């Protein structure tokens, strides 16, 4: 699971549930207003931080220790390492491309060796 720095401490985030993974994928895929997107990203980060470190993270955020860009980067990192792309690819083309890639690999394996 991903880790984030809160002050001087490196904290391991909690493993998202199936529902949380879908939520992460939804936010990652966009389709929200800028305000809603930001709210959902912050909610996701806070929720995955262990309860023991949430207060420290929020204090740091409120005092300006994290910029909006930091939060977006943190969210993308969480989404990436949680495997949301596997849980819910952004669109059909992406899935089809993945299928084609797999098919191509299979074909390549079956191809006879040229002498």
């Amino acid at each position, binding site marked *: 699971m991903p880790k984030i720095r809160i002050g001087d401490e490196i904290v391991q985030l909690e493993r998202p*549930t*199936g*529902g*949380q*993974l*879908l*939520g*992460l*994928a*939804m*936010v990652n*895929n966009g*389709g*929200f*207003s800028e305000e*809603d997107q930001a*709210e*959902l990203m912050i*909610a*996701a980060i806070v*929720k995955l931080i262990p309860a023991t470190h949430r207060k420290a993270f929020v204090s740091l955020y409120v005092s300006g220790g994290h910029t909006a860009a930091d939060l977006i980067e943190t969210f993308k990192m969480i989404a990436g390492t949680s495997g949301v792309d596997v849980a*819910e*690819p*952004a*669109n*059909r083309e992406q*899935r089809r491309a993945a299928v084609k890639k797999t098919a191509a690999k299979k074909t390549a394996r079956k191809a006879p060796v040229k002498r």
Partner: protein
Amino acid sequence: MSLGSAVRAQPFTVTVGGVTVTVEAAMADRWLDAITGNPMTSVVPGMCSAEDRRAVGLALIGGELSDSDLWEAASAAIAEASGRPWWEAVRLAGIADQNRILLGLMTLEGVHAHTVTLGAWCDAAFVTVLRNMDEKKRTRFEADLMIPPGGSVDDLTSFDAVVW
């Protein structure tokens, strides 16, 4: 399921976990995108208002909703919009997605997804398939279309699993 939602595009409500959300009125093209696009969230909350999308997003992230809550809501929404059991609508959409001849035949008949409801589109797709099918295969096709998918919703990971 009501005939009203199937024959006219109108908003209706479904529950996700304990939360009631409103599915916006939409023609078949948006529904087909949502169903064949596959992401479970593209139906509910994808077809809902921005406010409901935000609420469901927060509930998912907060751990208050599970993926099966979302699946059940999506299934109920598809059934309501199509006026059929959800798996029939998903299968008909899947056939059109995999076999463009069906879409071509429907276009030639003047059935354009952006001008008809999901219910009307499903009815037209069903009749188009039957009309163009060997008579001996029709009963089998109808049976295959109507048989509910096996297992529980927890066993289904995507709509793709329901399409033959």
